[in-house]
């Protein structure tokens, strides 16, 4: 491999690495968002379970 080829490879690798780091950061963020959604889902379930039954029975038909 010539010196020029090494420099060209380094430049293209730098672009690839930066894009890869960006993808990694987005993946970490998605993991955090997924965890937050799960927490909120759990919170909503707990609140629903605690709510007293307020609906009245009505005749149908």
């Amino acid at each position: 491999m010539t010196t020029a080829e090494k420099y060209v490879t380094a430049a293209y690798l730098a672009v690839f690495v930066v894009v890869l780091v960006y993808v990694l950061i987005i993946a970490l963020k998605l993991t955090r968002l997924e965890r937050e959604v799960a927490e909120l889902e759990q919170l909503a379930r707990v609140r629903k379970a605690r709510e007293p039954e307020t609906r009245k029975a009505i005749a149908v038909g």
Partner: protein
Amino acid sequence: MRANRLPLLAALALGLTAAAIAMVFFYAPVDADGFNQKIFYFHVSIALTAYVCFGWGAWKAFVHLWKRKPGADLESYVAIHQGVIFGVLVLVTGSIWARYRWGHWWVWSSNQLVLFLVLFLFYAAYFMLRYSIEEGARRENLSAVYAIFGVVLIPVSWLAIHLAQDIIHPVVFTSHGPQLGGSELVTFVVSLAAVLSLAACMYHVELAGKRLDARLRSLRELLA
């Protein structure tokens, strides 16, 4: 952007990037400068994409101040973030190329390089300003004004090479048109399209993440 368009944009970015890399190495000829000239196709495309991102960020900032459109501030922020990412890439790929061509990683006497660094640092400081102010209308307005001021540096940076007395940085796009052969120009256009589509894809992915984050925060407040 509608959710079903994002995978299409990602597929387009992937296809164009693969085509651009193939064209750079197997279609475009090795010119008089030698093999190192292959860096040009992505280095210049990334630089132009950084300008587009900063310009888009400034436009969205203007829309925020003018029409008070909800979400324009967030769009401006994400565009400037993309611009800074591509700015880092311009500086890294440029330095690698400079080390080979000129024997130095950086040349302070080149106005083109220094003005791009000023533009990059100006927009890097945008985040310091933004996060030094509490969330709300004041932060959005000050960030928007700052983003609009920065856009003035884009034409200055672009024209610097023509105004500069030094001849160290090569000039490809002159008033007589691009100084490239047919196949070189086609390769450059495909590379530019690839980098622009990659930036658009990254912009929409980050924007979707930020919007989802904001919605989850308001949902948490509602459930608290």
